[in-house]
């Protein structure tokens, strides 16, 4: 019997082809979905946090509700939409990495929006005053806001990335956990657990945690540069 740690190290050293494939798919999926969520979430978050218009309150509440959407429900919705009998069947996206990314963006973007919006609405009035004093236009004011929120945006990205790597409900549903194609770390852990192979599950979990530790160290170092 081996310990899970030994198993994890052995798996990495052996360069197991299936593990490499799982890591690659995981990286492709979570990096794309977190970056897309950031691209959508930051502008919308700054807009929601700084502009005053009627209906803004409703949008904020809707977004906060979406932040709490259970991944498995999101997965189910995308599964039904893109099923062989679903309305979007012509795109042939079910059981591909692309639909996993789409489902994750749908899950993660609200979290980025919510985080950015909360922070921006706190500093918006003072930044607006400064911008007025300097005679800056709306566009430049928004740029200034984004610059001021950089620390928060990086935090939001970390949150998005963490959610993307850790999430299993939606991706197992729409991806189908197909070997060599759509199997990611979390779905592989689920499979091993279902087969009763708990220690290999923990080994994969350790690898996943180590990867996210590395990502967190890099982004946190980057973040430090913004406060200094």
């Amino acid at each position, binding site marked *: 019997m081996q310990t899970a740690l030994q198993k994890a190290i052995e798996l990495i050293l052996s360069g197991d082809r299936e593990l490499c494939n799982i890591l690659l798919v995981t990286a492709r999926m979570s990096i794309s979905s977190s970056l897309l969520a950031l691209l959508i979430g930051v502008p919308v978050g700054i807009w929601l946090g700084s502009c005053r218009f009627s209906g803004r309150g409703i949008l904020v509440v809707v977004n906060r509700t979406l932040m709490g959407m259970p991944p498995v429900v999101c997965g189910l919705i995308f599964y039904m939409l893109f099923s*062989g*009998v*679903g*309305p979007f*069947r012509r795109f042939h996206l079910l*059981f591909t990495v692309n639909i996993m990314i789409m489902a994750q963006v749908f899950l993660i973007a609200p979290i980025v929006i919510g985080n950015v919006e909360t922070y921006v609405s706190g500093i918006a009035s003072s930044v607006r005053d400064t911008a007025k004093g300097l005679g800056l236009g709306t566009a430049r004011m928004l740029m200034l806001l984004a610059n001021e929120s950089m620390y928060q945006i990086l935090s939001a990205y970390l949150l998005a990335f963490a959610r993307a790597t850790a999430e299993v409900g939606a991706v197992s549903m729409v991806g189908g956990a197909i070997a060599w194609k759509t199997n990611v770390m979390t779905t592989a852990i689920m499979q091993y657990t279902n*087969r009763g192979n708990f*220690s290999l599950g923990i080994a994969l979990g350790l690898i996943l945690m*180590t990867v996210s530790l590395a990502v967190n160290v890099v982004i946190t170092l980057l973040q430090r540069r913004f406060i*200094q």
Partner: protein
Amino acid sequence: MKKRSMMSMLLALAMTMSLLGSVTVMAEEETEAVEASTETAEAAELNTVILKEADDSMINTYTLIAVNPDAPFTDADGNEVSDVAINTEGAAALIQFLLSAEGKELEANYGQEEFGDSLFYLLDGAPSYEGEIAPATDETATIRLSTTTSVNDSGLLGAILPVFEEEYGYTVEVQSAGTGKAIAAAQYGNADLILVHAKSSEEEFVNDGYALKLDGFDSERLSFLYNYFVLCGPADDPAGVAEAETVLDAFAAIAEGKYTFISRGDESGTHTKELSLWPADLGITVEAESFADYTDWYVSANAGMGACLVMAEEMGAYILTDKATFLTFVANGGVME
């Protein structure tokens, strides 16, 4: 300022590492515990053993069915959908290969090397295919196979599909779930063929018009492999099922004495089989309501076969499983590889 931030970074790193470390220690302790239990079990194997097998009512037949592209598919609202994309050529090729002499040899011999015993047997009078198998084209290259966990977890598909893929250029995408879910995936137009083991659900699938009769075969349902369901439980067998005359008596004894029983509870083929073995007056069905009064001994786990076997081993419970999965479970010392 810089020094301090570096220090705190290091601190954070150290904390995370120690957290990881403690998880590893926990895992180590866990494996040690398992080790200890396997050591004692070395003489007597695992505590969970086969108590009842090779009974005629315990035959577990696996069936291939191609999905009919013109099936009465309906969307979530019940509206008819006509243009569902099904790769019938691919499904036919895979079925022809599995029923060819080459495929059958692979199937019948699977397990000899690793376990010293075949895990699946060829059914007498199973349909055969002797003709040509069409190689993959761009449109037919991807085959979606929806199957049950027992076929996938026992390693059978992993041993056969690469041979087929290499020879004919197809890629087979395997989704594995309980038979109920595997059939549902096909009804939603997400599979080109299914490989399942629950006769009643299969017949319903055929009767509803979802199955396609391939050229050169007599029936939609192509049953070709079998193995046995086995009733397993703790070696000391408190319910005395090993002495029971039939499997039905054994199940009655478990229910009578209220000995813990782990049910898959996921509408899989194994679950369907189990439901047919309980005394009728208990009225146990797939509905949660039906076993609400038996929760002190009837455990509806809603999990895969391997996870359920681990649970049975932990709880000293009785469980129904297929022999292939059980042998893999035992060969790996209580885990499924």
